């Protein structure tokens, strides 16, 4: 027993050390955001909200947040719409190409999107779409569509078909059944997919960096980089405040998704695959 207790304490010790290693970089950004004289090292600030008011007082920053919301929100909406539609026949009907289609979708979920950016940029150039927020949104939509369809199909599989059949007997159309019976029952799944898509795109730097050009159209992810990437003198405090504000939506949405996820899981078998 003594040996066992010692082992346990060592394990706790290792976890504390690992936890501290993970905490340090975050701790710095937290402290720096409240410090107008922040430097690269950790130091305790004279707490002030000046950094935050400076970031929020800049219309360029606000616009970059707005663009981010439009880009990611639009993308999440489109992904949900397209994948609910696509998941329906995939979940409900036997079709000849279903198996190969689903396998291709799964295959696409794993492909690194980085690898197609060069030809995508050329396509945008060719059709004069570069610098178009809407076209960028469409590209982002398709890049997260495979994952969306795959997840949506698993969620939909767990909605019993009996309910729908009852609706059909009552005279509902296929479309009506999907809209009034299946979709509402899948709300946790839909929310999960929407949240995942939104956060993924909110944090995406590479795609807008390549496909958008004018500063007015850049989302927050690219604006942050322009701060710390190209300026000689970096105002660490402001940048930390900007980063923190920019990270908030991801954190909040993650917490929401946890709540929905557990509901989704309790639907039973919803996340198999």
């Amino acid at each position: 027993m003594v040996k066992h207790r010692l082992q346990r304490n060592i394990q706790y010790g290792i976890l504390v050390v690992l936890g501290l290693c993970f905490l340090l970089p975050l701790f710095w950004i937290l402290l720096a955001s409240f410090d107008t004289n922040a430097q690269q090292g950790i130091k305790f600030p004279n707490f002030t909200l000046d950094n935050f008011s400076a970031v929020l007082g800049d219309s360029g920053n606000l616009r970059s947040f707005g663009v981010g919301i439009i880009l990611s929100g639009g993308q999440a909406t489109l992904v949900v719409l397209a994948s609910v539609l696509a998941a329906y026949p995939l979940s409900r009907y036997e079709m000849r190409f279903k198996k190969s289609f689903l396998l291709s979708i799964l295959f696409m979920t794993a492909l690194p999107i980085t690898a197609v950016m060069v030809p995508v940029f050329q396509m945008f150039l060719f059709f004069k779409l570069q610098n178009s927020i809407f076209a960028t949104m469409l590209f982002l939509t398709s890049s997260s569509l495979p994952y969306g369809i795959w997840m949506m199909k698993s969620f939909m599989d767990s909605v019993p078909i009996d309910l729908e059949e009852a609706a059909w007997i009552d005279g509902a159309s296929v479309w009506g059944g999907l809209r009034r019976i299946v979709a509402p029952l899948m709300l946790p799944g839909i929310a999960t997919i929407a949240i995942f898509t939104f956060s993924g795109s909110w944090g995406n730097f590479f795609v807008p960096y390549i496909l958008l050009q004018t500063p007015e159209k850049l989302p927050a992810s690219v604006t942050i980089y322009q701060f710390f990437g190209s300026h000689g003198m970096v105002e660490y405090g402001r940048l930390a405040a900007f980063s923190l504000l920019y990270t908030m939506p991801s954190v909040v949405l993650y917490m929401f998704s946890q709540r929905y996820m557990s509901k989704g899981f309790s639907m039973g078998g919803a996340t198999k695959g």
Partner: protein
Amino acid sequence: MKRKPRGAFLFLTPSVLLLLIFFIVPIILTICFAFTNMALTGSAARNLQFIGFQNFTNMFQDPDFRISVWRTLVFLIFSAVIGQVVLGFILALLMKEKNITFRRIIGIIVIAGWVTPEIVVAFCMVAFFSDNGTLNQIIGWFGISPVSWLFSFPMVSVIIANIWHGTAFSMMVYQSALDEIPKDIEEAATIDGASSFKTLSYITIPMVKGSIVTNMMLVTLQTLGVFTLIYTMTGGGPGTATQTLPVFMYNQAFVNYQFGYGTAISLVLLVIGIVASLFYMKSMKVKV
């Protein structure tokens, strides 16, 4: 009462169209453009030609290419396989059967690094590793003189950054896999006198082998595509010290405007991705 499809397959149209335009076409274009001399500037810009395997011969003779393949491998092995997969497993294992509050706190800290967007991770890490940064402060307490981490150990810095950002995912995968092991199996082994190391290697690991393999493939694929973290932390430098394949591709296509060459590099990335992706699907043993 099973209804006939009767047009419901039309629901697939928007998705299929989008995937066709933005997924399939770019992949086909990658294959086509990789064999051209396409460029944005210079004579090749006006005079697009099919040049056969020229890009590939150039590529394999290009020392920059060879070294970026090597760097990609180093990055994959240390930050994905050893870093995220092994560290994630260790974390999940250590956290098993610990005090619930303690578990939750460690979990939140690790997951915070994962929820943080890549660009913010890069910024945090640049500050952490900088000359006056936190890391040098800490080693200073032990009387060690500061090190220019990003300059002297750039690869180590980006690898640590990627581990910091990615480990939570593996940790969560392993946590749920470990939770599914019936308690009595491990207990029985302990009662039979097996040491904890033996229980781990003969019972626990074999039982979660499936999740380990799948997670490893997934993490490797994600890490293969990592661009933002490296590009924003070091720009691929100093010199070409952290130029992995995605960064090399970016520099050739978007800095030097050699699109043909850049596309040939993306084709290599794509092929590696396709092979890894096929392995990934195989490891999942999916039923559709």
